[in-house]
């Protein structure tokens, strides 16, 4: 049961964005800017960072929502996403992404946990200042989203087959207002 009177038909952050449209607008814009850009970090890389931080924060809703979105961008490669959760160091991903996930994991603990050698390692693997910036801000943003979602005890749908359907909406339309105007899709 959510701690405040939100629309019970809306899961997770959707219920909160609908509850507070004034703060929903910048939060949606931030998610769109950070997660829907493909440069030297792909959209899959960005979602994996968000998913991994959510996993570390034990936020079921964000972990599974963003895991499914990453799977869509990875053409259905669920094994890869599971391997990142289990131990990203052993996962079949680039050394650069491993070094960025290490920075993200440090950010999850606290900003001051990120040490110069974490940054050096990422730069040695070819990470640019912008890659490092975006990694830190994505990780920090998920530390906000996860606390917002769980701190108010929002509903996390337990039917796992609804998550891929929702992921498809994001993959097709991004993080616009539509995400908090629609309930979790129901599997047929």
């Amino acid at each position, binding site marked *: 049961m959510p*701690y*405040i*009177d939100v629309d019970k038909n809306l899961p997770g952050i959707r219920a*909160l964005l609908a*509850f*507070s449209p*004034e*703060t929903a*607008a*910048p*939060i949606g*814009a*931030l998610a769109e*800017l*950070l997660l829907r850009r493909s440069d030297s970090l792909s959209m899959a890389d960005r979602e994996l960072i968000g998913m991994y931080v959510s996993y570390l*924060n*034990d*936020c079921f809703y964000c972990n599974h929502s963003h895991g499914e979105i990453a799977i869509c961008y990875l053409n259905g490669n669920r094994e890869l996403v599971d391997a990142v959760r289990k131990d990203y160091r052993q996962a079949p991903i680039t050394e650069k992404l491993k070094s960025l996930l290490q*920075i993200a994991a*440090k*950010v999850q603990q*606290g*900003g*001051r946990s*990120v040490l*110069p050698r974490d*940054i050096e390692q990422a730069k040695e693997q070819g990470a640019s*200042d*912008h890659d*490092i*910036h975006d990694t*830190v*801000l994505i*990780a*920090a*943003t998920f*530390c*906000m*989203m*996860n*606390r*917002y*979602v*769980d*701190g*108010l*005890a929002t509903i996390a749908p337990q039917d796992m087959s609804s998550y891929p359907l929702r992921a498809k909406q994001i993959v097709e339309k991004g993080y616009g207002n539509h995400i908090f105007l629609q309930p979790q899709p129901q599997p047929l």
Partner: protein
Amino acid sequence: MAYIQVEEGIPGIRSLFQFNPETGGPLCDLAQALLRGPSPLSAAERELIAAYVSHRNGCMFCMNSHAMAARCLLGDQQHIVDEILIEQNTSALSAKMKSLLLIAGKVQVNGKSVKAEDIEMARNAGAGDADIHDTVLIAASFSMFNRYVDGLNTLTPSGRWAYEEMGKRMSEKGYQL
């Protein structure tokens, strides 16, 4: 030295807004909506929550700047800021504010740390949905801002007096790029 090439001499989050104005826009809008927009909590109370969470996260830049903004907004009540942050003495606060700070402290640890009885206590002290929502989101967003500022090792001026002008500007003009 910041971990990425931001302009030298610009402190804290402002150096990051300048490095990446694109995300700076919504981040400022979020701070403005949360700390100055409509809320049953006063701007001073919201700045106190922000300073308290930043203090718990050990983020000196955010703690000092928001504590100074709170002092400016509190006027002759500004002793409350040091009582809370330095002496951990909350006796000057209302029961409602005490219960909201407790929730903010739990959010700082982790979302799941907030328990139904914490919410119950806040409600018994007169907090409504908007008080609780705003408290949780302020605490959550400072869990982000603090990590952004310290995770990239931005310039942190030392000593509270370096923050006087900043706090005054924040209290008068709010948050804009």
